[in-house]
């Protein structure tokens, strides 16, 4: 670990923090329907869209109607994307002649992009036509991100409102998130990427002759536009198979830095939106602080583990940090930080191969996802996931001050606890359940490339990434099989909607409650004590469940490595 490395991490944190407030202020105004700097340009477009769709922007929905609108929208989105994937060979903008996508892969991919996961069982440049990339994948990148933001807004309104029946309009939130937040940022961002050297073209692959005289096909395409939203919307689905390690997706150190910042930007700003909407920005900062503590702890461990390298290689006289699977142009700190960022937020873009990290370096991304993508998290999803944990933490701690637990004046009662537990339960069930299945059936055991604990980690990582809607691949796992495509696809869908619907139910029941005024008997939720409590509850309730699995995967791998042991064969 070097001073330079720490400076990069510190700079990254500083920029994310500096952006949170202005972006949060802008988004708060957008979702309140107030005038913003872009209103003159976009308000007519917004109004036109509502008129075309027959939506009354002033009509708000109760939580159930909101949830049904969201689900209906997703069913249609799923069918459209699935259909597009199946028939892409017949459609235009397919200069490289990509064939139709197989049913299981199409299911997996549709589920993946619909749920903001962007798990890719395919290599983009060898599977998807430009039309699919643009009209299918990029569109879903926008919509799934906008959905996450919309749902977070609904939950925040639940806290902010009192004795209200409605939590907002899904259609309006979705439109505003896309139109005012994601699109403008992405336009600027894509132009920046083009300046940095990312291609944006509809022409087919370029044929080149290498210095050795070999023929080489260089894949290009409308890359910049997809990369912008894949980062900003925490989608993470790369245009190319190598994702952000590919020089055309992530060409320079500056591009790499901005990509990391853009993964966190909206998620961090959402905490500020939350604070503003409940009338006390400190509440937002407290949430962000809890996220920050977990993030820095994780980033430190990854960086430390990668910088320390592998004791087995040390024994062979190959000392120094672990550079296996990393781009030399990024080096250890930028790769370690990227890994921590992309798994803390539910982005899943990678600029290094996590499979090649040290055991502990690979365990942190795993834990980040197992906690439920609440460390900044997916745009919107991180906030509502975190608020679910807040409810559990408040419930336990609130009792300890001798009152029915309350958060921001809302009493936390049976219904909220039930829904919060449902949302929390769903992740270990999917992650551990599917892993348990895959480690005993032949189709599952055929997947991992490595034997022993590392192979186990590859399977666990895949299902964890899917259920947490992260989408990053550990690598090493052959996932484009009917078994993995189906199980991972189901994991992504359940992992998304079994969290969203309870979160919306909480929004509805909170909105209907009165707001209890603050008194000296009210538990303060903006101080260090609360942040510490929240972190503790997240680690114990959210994290401990995975200790047996982690012990059999990265932990034992790490311990064995320390003893100079490897797991070459068998398993």
């Amino acid at each position, binding site marked *: 670990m070097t001073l330079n490395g720490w400076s990069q991490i510190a700079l990254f944190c500083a920029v994310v923090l500096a952006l949170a407030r202005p972006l949060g202020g802008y988004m708060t105004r957008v979702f309140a329907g107030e005038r913003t700097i872009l209103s003159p340009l976009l308000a007519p477009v917004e109004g036109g869209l509502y008129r075309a769709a027959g939506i009354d922007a002033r009509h708000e929905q109760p939580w159930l109607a909101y949830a049904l609108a969201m689900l209906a929208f997703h069913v249609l989105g799923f069918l459209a994307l699935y259909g597009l994937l199946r028939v892409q060979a017949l459609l235009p903008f397919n200069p490289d002649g990509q064939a139709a996508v197989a049913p299981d892969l199409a299911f997996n991919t549709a589920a993946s992009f619909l749920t903001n996961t962007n798990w890719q069982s395919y290599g983009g440049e060898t599977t998807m036509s430009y039309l699919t990339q643009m009209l299918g994948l990029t569109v879903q990148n926008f919509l799934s991100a906008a959905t996450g933001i919309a749902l977070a807004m609904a939950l925040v309104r639940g806290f902010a409102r009192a004795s209200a029946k409605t939590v907002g309009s899904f259609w309006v939130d979705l439109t505003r998130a896309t139109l005012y937040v994601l699109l403008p940022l992405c336009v600027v961002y894509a132009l920046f990427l083009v300046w940095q050297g990312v291609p944006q073209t509809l022409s087919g692959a370029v044929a080149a002759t290498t210095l050795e005289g070999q023929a080489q096909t260089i894949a290009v395409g409308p890359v910049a536009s997809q990369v912008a939203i894949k980062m900003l919307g925490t989608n993470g689905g790369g245009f190319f198979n190598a994702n952000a390690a590919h020089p055309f997706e992530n060409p320079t150190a500056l591009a790499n830095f901005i990509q990391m910042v853009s993964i966190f930007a909206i998620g961090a700003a959402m905490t500020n939106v939350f604070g503003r909407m409940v009338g006390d920005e400190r509440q937002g900062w407290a949430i962000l602080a809890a996220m920050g503590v977990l993030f820095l702890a994780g980033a430190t461990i990854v960086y430390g583990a990668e910088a320390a390298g592998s004791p087995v290689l040390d024994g062979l006289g190959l000392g120094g940090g672990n550079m296996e699977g990393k781009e030399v142009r990024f080096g250890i700190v930028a790769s370690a930080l990227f890994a921590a960022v992309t798994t803390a937020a539910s982005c899943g873009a990678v600029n290094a191969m996590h499979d090649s990290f040290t055991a502990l370096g690979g365990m942190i991304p795993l834990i980040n996802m197992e906690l439920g993508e609440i460390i900044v998290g997916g745009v919107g999803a991180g906030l509502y996931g975190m608020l679910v944990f807040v409810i559990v933490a408040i419930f336990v701690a609130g009792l300890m001050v*001798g009152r029915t637990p309350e958060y921001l004046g809302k009493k936390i*009662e049976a219904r909220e*606890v*039930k829904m919060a537990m449902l949302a929390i*339960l769903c992740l270990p069930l999917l992650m551990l359940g599917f892993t348990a*299945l895959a480690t005993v059936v032949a189709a599952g055991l055929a997947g991992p490339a490595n034997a022993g604990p590392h192979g186990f980690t590859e399977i666990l990582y895949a299902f964890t990434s899917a259920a947490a809607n992260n989408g990053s691949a550990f690598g090493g796992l052959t996932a484009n099989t009917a078994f993995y495509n189906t199980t991972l696809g189901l994991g992504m869908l359940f992992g998304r909607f079994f969290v969203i619907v309870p979160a919306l139910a909480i929004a509805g029941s909170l909105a209907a409650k009165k707001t209890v005024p603050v008194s000296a008997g009210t538990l303060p939720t903006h*101080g260090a004590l609360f942040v510490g*409590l929240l972190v503790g509850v997240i680690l114990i309730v959210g994290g401990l*469940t995975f200790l047996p699995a982690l012990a059999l995967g990265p932990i034992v791998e790490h311990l064995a490595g320390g003893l100079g042991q490897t797991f070459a064969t068998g398993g």
Partner: protein
Amino acid sequence: MARQPSTRPFSAALLGPALLGAVTKLDPRSMIRNPVMFVVEVVAVLTTVLFARDVLAGGTDLAFSGQIVLWLWFTVLFANFAEAVAEGRGKAQADSLRRTRTETTARRLAGAAEEVVPGHDLKVGDVVRVAAGEIIPSDGEVIRGVASVNEAAITGESAPVIRESGGDRSAVTGGTQVLSDEIDVRITAAAGSTFVDRMIALVEGAARRKTPNEIALNILLAGLTLIFVFAVASIPSFAAYAGGAIPVIVLVALFVTLIPTTIGALLSAIGIAGMDRLVRFNVLAMSGRAVEAAGDVDTLLLDKTGTITLGNRQATEFRPVRGVSERDLADAAQLASLADETPEGRSIVVLAKEAYGLRARDMASLNATFVPFTAQTRMSGVDLDGSSIRKGAVDSIIASVSPQPMATRGSGAAFAYSPGMAGETVREIQAIAEDVAKAGGTPLAVVRDGQLLGIVYLKDIVKGGIRERFAELRRMGIRTVMITGDNPMTAAAIAAEAGVDDFLAQATPEDKLALIRKEQAQGKLVAMCGDGTNDAPALAQADVGVAMNTGTVAAREAGNMVDLDSDPTKLIEIVEIGKQLLMTRGALTTFSIANDVAKYFAIIPAMFLGLYPQLQALNVMRLASPQSAILSAIVFNALVIVALIPLALRGVSYRPVGAGALLRRNLAIYGFGGLLVPFVGIKAIDLAVTALHLV
């Protein structure tokens, strides 16, 4: 009933029945009420069956699995024992109550005739006659007569109380004894649903239903249990991948230690003990919900008289208007008060005697008729020899001498002035009254035959230490509102002296109700106490309504708690007990969850050592062997339940220091304590287990 608050959770007499109760509660039909412990019972049965099979088939490690099975059963039994002990303490009280419910006969009035019927045949609406020496057959309301009644059977207080028709002391309770005189009582409760019956059901826990907070907590615990089902159920596959297998008994041990058994086992005991603590304070809560609500109270409405000030105001001074001597005023005031048995009335008689040597005269010899106080006239006095003397609230007295009817009185209108009055004296009276009121006293105007004589200065004596109690409440985040019939100025002075946050002066029952509604509309929970029939709507509206036992049937029905001592100050203790109940739940839940860290570190390395010997590094406690580690964890898990029973019954101590400080303290004790204690405890048990060669 036990009067002394006992702090000893276990007494020898209770232990026997509790041990028996622990076994009978193994019935799955009663276990299912407690999801966490029910799950433990299910896995205990499962492992017992597996163990029996192994014994018959000659399996290995029988001593180890046998001990685990045993400790699983102990875990369930300890939980049941905790509940049985808590219930046992209530049962002892119920038994002493039940003894009062002897079978009685009643003299039922049918028209003019009387018929003797068994007490349990009485129906609601029947009228019975009860004479001195007889037991009142059932709950009812006095409709004729006045009697002194011994209510020791329910209140433990042996001094007789007066019960009379009309007014706020008309309720009588079945099982109490009439000591003097004769009353007619209209029965208001059928057999089996009387006050004593309800008390018995409450203290026995028979009527116990889960409170909202308990339900929420149970959901959390069930959720955590499910999470650990997933965590443990996936292990066999993971182990198979690693090329091994984990014995079921070890998986069960891990599962049972991880799920929140500590709080699961003690949850109902905590609830029962909370009700019990109230009973020991001589307060009966009609539901656990009310006790919880008490902990949440934001606003306390306190009647000034009896709560904030000593009930009796003392006359300390006579202040006549110009042209009237102090002695004249004292004389008239004394005459008006001769038949007034209120403490205030008596203090006027005494002051007149002490200051001016005026002897109290006999009403009969004066041929005087007493005019009692009513809520409408708000004055009392005497009529004698064509002359009438009245004393009462200043505005009422002024109104009575005014040619016009008074304008409607409302809170805030301190001294409604009737225009057209012969102003001079009225203004003077008002000025004196204002002076008195500003000083926190109560002015009582005296009038003789339409002529205003002056003011009697009644001084309210604020109770010692009450100011500190209110400061304490403020630190708890509770706002106190003093309710008084006094005018705003008097109220303000007393409010300032007592240190309440706000006051409602010249409060009518409607004002009280309106205030409660207003507070509730802001999302606040309101507690109040009351005794009169006109308090009933407010008592019913309040989230915590404490009815005084001396009060009317209507008040007792409307409130959700009854204070048998009829001491309004208890509202403060009730709030603390409510908070203590919630805190105890929270503290033990936190402790239970925090325990998991150590348990993981005990069992995970032990469990997986056969698969990966490298995991020995996780055995941070350096436990002797995998079997001793697992056994120690499960023994610790069971014993910690027993160790915490006293805390569950006694409750976590509450200190009014504000929520932040309270959380910091409890988090340090039960959060960090919960992390550390099991590391120490499991290590200690492991040493013992190894020393005794148990595995």
